[in-house]
Every structure is written in structure tokens, then in C-alpha cells.
């Protein structure tokens, strides 16, 4: 099984230096890209079926292709790597950033070339101290080697890249909020349209891509679209995927597997199944803002379409496992307090609705709940549904709740009838 993203990761956890990275074939893809037409690079990425790994699964080549090109476009354009990774339960980008920063930098230079961007930023979350060191060091090496700066590899292409370390807040990961944060402002989302591809950072055309998305780019350039498509088990979408699992499984961790590996294989083979004494109750398949799936969904391939078909989202692909010894209402309570706390406060349904939701869950979990509260919770999931709020934070917050109300209804009712949490003795 091929693992292009992780095969060269060193077992001692230190990152690959420029020299080591070049020994694995690093920066050859960049040389190749620079000899091509920018549009041909985008076409290759489109043909590879690479879909965004930040959660939404938007085809990367299609996004790049929406950037205005040529003489009439507004310059400078920007290429931004989204390394904010704050989705609860997600820890995949960190691994890539800490172990092989050059893979991301090379991908970003190729991406910037494809859209004719002359400035690039890596937007990193504050908590990733080791990743910050790895990137800082790698950027220095790349500048010294002449792969960044003026006239890269004699191609006439200029690119400046720098690292921005954030100061917290989940909403910074939302791409338009991220752009405001990069501009030194409060990270409030912006109205779309206009989309960042047309009017992004400082009002100029901008691409924002997730770390894992970018990590794939050099491999696509080096080995081609067909090779990439064949890595995946899913029709029309290419590549491997970093899958993770946390919770009471025997072997929590991360694995690079063909896109479309089933939930069951990830949990039973790679995560080793449940720890002794715990049995499986459900999962959030791709981070805190995805709908619960249960036993009957275990044979679902983990790709964008298949997970959507069974009523959830693949999201970040890092699976949070709920066991029988953990109260699902308590788990939701933790989640909704997170979302309420991280709401940017810009639009009313989210600013008011999320704290209300969190308080209702507090009441139910503490044994003060009423049956009517379940109706109010149902109402909240509609009130904050997609389209009713300014950005996708609040609808994301409703995904675990609406599915819990469906699958774990009996647990809600037990809390209310017994006026206590059955999991607390």
C-alpha cells in the first residue's frame, strides 16, 4: 500500500531537513511545475481528483481554476496554507507539519505558481509549538537554497512565504475569518460572495487550502493524475487520506490509508477495536462538527460522498469514538460549550442560540431537564441550520446534536425521567 504523505516520516519524530527531503525526491516536483504553464499545473491537480482535506471536500483544481489569471487580474495574489486545525478531535495536520514541513512548503510554492501568486502565508495555530519550529527552520533552508524569493530556480517566478502564528479562536480556521486575522483584525467571517478566489486577502485573489490538501500536491506533480486516482478506493476522488481515532479504542492514533477505507477497517484493524471493558456506541466521523454515526454505518467507506449519503460528513477524517461508559449528553455538553464559547458573536442565531443550547444540555445532564427541552433542542437544530447563520460554525455545531437526538433519544429521556445522569453514580 502506497503512503506518499507519510512514508518518509522519521521514526524518532524529528523533521526532515532540506537535505533529507531532497533525498526522498523533494523539490523535483517544483522544478517540473516551474517548467509547465501555470494553467497546466491546475489542470493536472483537477484531473487527479484531489478534494480539499479541510472538511468540505471542494475539488482543489476547480478552486485554483477560479482565480482570475493573466494580465487583467488584480495583483498581488496570495496563496494561504490553512494550518489552524482547531476542530475538536482533529490532530492530522499537526503530524504533517511537525514531521515533514518541506512537503507542505513545496506544495504551497507549486500552488502559488499555478495561480500566479507572489505572496504566501502559512497560518498556524498557536498551540503547535513544534510545528512552528519545524516550519521556521524549513523556510530558512528553502530561502537559502533559492527555492523561495526572486527568480526561483531560474524560472522568473518570484514568491515570498512567511509564517503567521495565530493567537487562538476556532473561527480563525474558517477561510474568510482567517483572512481577517491575517490582516491583523478580529477574525470575523466575511460575506460570500465575493469569494476569496476573486477578493480575498487585502481584497486580492486568494487561495486558502488545508495542510493535508497541500501536502498532496508535489506527489501529484511527480507521479501524475492517474497514479493519484488509483491510490483511492473511491470513484472520482483521488489519493490517500489521513484517518485518526481517539477515545477508548485500544490503539488511538493516525494512519494514512486509501481514501474510501471503511469506518470498520479503521476502527477494528488500525485502532485495534475497543479497549477491554468498553463497547462501541457511536462515532463522530470527522471532528466535533459532524453528525454521529452508529453500528449500522460501520461499513460506510470514509469518503466525502459515502459519508454524506448516510447522513454525516467525513470532515477532517479524525474519528471520535463514543463508548458505553461515557454519557452522550455529557459529551454533547462539552461540544456545545465549545461551540458557544468559540462563536464569534457576529450573527444573532449563533450568538444567542449556542449558549441557550449549552444551557439546556447542562440542565438535562444535571437532572433538571424537562421533556419540553428536547423540543427546544430540536428547534435549535432547525433555527441554526445551514443558510440561517452567517457562517458554517453554528450549523456545524448542530450536526452532533441533531444526530444525537435521533440515535440517543432514549438516553436524553432517561436523564429527564430519572432527573439525574444515569452514568453518574
Amino acid at each position, binding site marked *: 500500500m502506497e503512503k506518499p504523505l507519510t512514508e518518509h516520516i522519521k521514526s524518532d519524530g524529528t523533521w526532515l531537513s532540506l537535505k533529507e527531503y531532497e533525498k526522498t525526491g523533494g523539490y523535483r516536483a517544483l522544478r517540473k511545475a516551474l517548467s509547465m504553464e501555470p494553467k497546466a499545473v491546475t489542470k493536472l491537480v483537477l484531473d487527479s481528483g484531489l478534494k480539499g482535506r479541510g472538511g468540505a471536500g471542494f475539488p482543489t483544481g476547480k478552486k485554483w481554476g477560479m482565480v482570475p489569471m493573466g494580465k487583467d487580474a488584480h495583483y498581488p495574489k496570495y496563496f494561504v496554507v490553512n494550518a489552524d*486545525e*482547531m*476542530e*475538536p*478531535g*482533529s*490532530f492530522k*495536520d*499537526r503530524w504533517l507539519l511537525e514531521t515533514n514541513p518541506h512537503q507542505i512548503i513545496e506544495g504551497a510554492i507549486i500552488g502559488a505558481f499555478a495561480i500566479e501568486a507572489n505572496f504566501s502565508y502559512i497560518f498556524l*495555530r*498557536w*498551540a*503547535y*509549538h513544534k510545528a512552528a519550529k519545524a516550519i521556521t527552520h524549513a523556510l530558512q533552508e528553502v530561502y537559502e537554497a533559492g527555492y523561495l524569493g526572486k527568480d526561483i530556480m531560474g524560472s522568473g517566478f518570484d514568491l*515570498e512565504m*512567511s509564517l*503567521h*502564528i*495565530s*493567537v*487562538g*479562536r*476556532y473561527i480563525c480556521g474558517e477561510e474568510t475569518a482567517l483572512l481577517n*486575522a*491575517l*490582516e*491583523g*483584525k*478580529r*477574525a470575523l467571517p466575511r460575506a460570500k460572495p465575493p469569494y476569496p478566489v476573486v477578493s480575498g486577502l*487585502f481584497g486580492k485573489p486568494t487561495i486558502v487550502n488545508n495542510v493535508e490538501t497541500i501536502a498532496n500536491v508535489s506527489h501529484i506533480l511527480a507521479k501524475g493524475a492517474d497514479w493519484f486516482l488509483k491510490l483511492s478506493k473511491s470513484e472520482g476522488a483521488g489519493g490517500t487520506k489521513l484517518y*485518526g*481515532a*481517539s*477515545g*477508548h479504542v485500544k490503539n*488511538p*492514533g*493516525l494512519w494514512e490509508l486509501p481514501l474510501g477505507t471503511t469506518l470498520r477497517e479503521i476502527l477494528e484493524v488500525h485502532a485495534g477495536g475497543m479497549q477491554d471493558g468498553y463497547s462501541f456506541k457511536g462515532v*463522530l466521523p470527522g471532528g*466535533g462538527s459532524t453528525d454521529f454515526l452508529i453500528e449500522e454505518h460501520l461499513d460506510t467507506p470514509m469518503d466525502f460522498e459515502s459519508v454524506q449519503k448516510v447522513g454525516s460528513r467525513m470532515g477532517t477524517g*479524525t474519528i*471520535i*469514538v*463514543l*463508548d458505553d461508559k*461515557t454519557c452522550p449528553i*455529557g*459529551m454533547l455538553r*462539552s*461540544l456545545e*460549550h*465549545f461551540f458557544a*464559547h*468559540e462563536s464569534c458573536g457576529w450573527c444573532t442565531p449563533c450568538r444567542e442560540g449556542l449558549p441557550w443550547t449549552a444551557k439546556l444540555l447542562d440542565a438535562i445532564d444535571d437532572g433538571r431537564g424537562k421533556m419540553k427541552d428536547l423540543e427546544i433542542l430540536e428547534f435549535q437544530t432547525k433555527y441554526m441550520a445551514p443558510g440561517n447563520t452567517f457562517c458554517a460554525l453554528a450549523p456545524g455545531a448542530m450536526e452532533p446534536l441533531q444526530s444525537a437526538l435521533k440515535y440517543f433519544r432514549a438516553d436524553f429521556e432517561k436523564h429527564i425521567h430519572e432527573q439525574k445522569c444515569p452514568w453518574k453514580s
Partner: protein
Amino acid sequence: MTGKQILSEKEIAEIKAVFKHFPVKSAACIEGLKIVQKYHHWVSDEALKELAAILEMSVDAVDSVATYYNLIFRKPVGRHVILVCNSVSCYIMGYNEIITFLQQKLGIEYGETSEDDRFTLLSVPCLGDCDHAPVLIIDDDLHGNLTPDKLEKILDSYK
């Protein structure tokens, strides 16, 4: 403005060095706040005023940015800042036990600083280390797979 200047020449130079990465000075606002905090451990009203002048922004505009972000401290903090992940995977893996232990051991709640000024206790969202939950950060160090016993030893190493 009266009294002594808070920001040193070194800090000012560091803040101004950020300008070259951006087309407008105000884009250096967050970096500027981080630089101030790096040297003073928090951002006082006086420091904020001086920073605003460097950025050519109004004091209110800088403060609105400073108060928006979780990790810009507008109040003094202890010698070490403990950031406890209170998100979902840590919740499942024993967050309650960890926070109860910390609050009892240090005698403080979230948002407070211990009497000896040694620790400030804060909660943070998911630290991206969920496969080692429960997790927390002290200063810049990540500690995972925590149990109260293990945490007790870890705390001892921060004086």
C-alpha cells in the same frame, strides 16, 4: 502620556520588522500584541497605547483585536500558564478527573492565578493531540496521557 516608556527599543524594532511582510501597518497588529506579550507576559493598557501609536491605529481598534483572541492576556498572569484542553476527546478520556485534581491542588478556578503567583489556570479548545487525551499545555510544553499522579510530578518541575 506620562511616565516611563513601557516598550523597549528592541521590542519596537521587532514590531517594525513585521511591517515588511504586509502591505499595511495595521496588519502587524496581532504580531505586535504577541511581541508585547512575549516580553511582558501580558498586555497592559500603557503597552497597548504605545503599540497603537507604532501601528498608527487607534487605541480602541487595537484593544478590540486584543480582547477578541483567547491568548492575548489583558490581565497579569502567573509565572506559568496552564492551558487545559476541555474538548470532546479529552472529556471522554478523563478531563473531569484532571481538572478536579488541578483545582484542588492549586486552590484556584479557571481564570485565576495561584497565591504564590506560580500558576494561572485556563481552559482551551482541543490541542490537536487527542490520541493522547487527556492533554494540557504548560507554557510551551505539551503533556498527554495524563493521570492525577503523573500531573502531580509534572507540576513539581515548574517552579
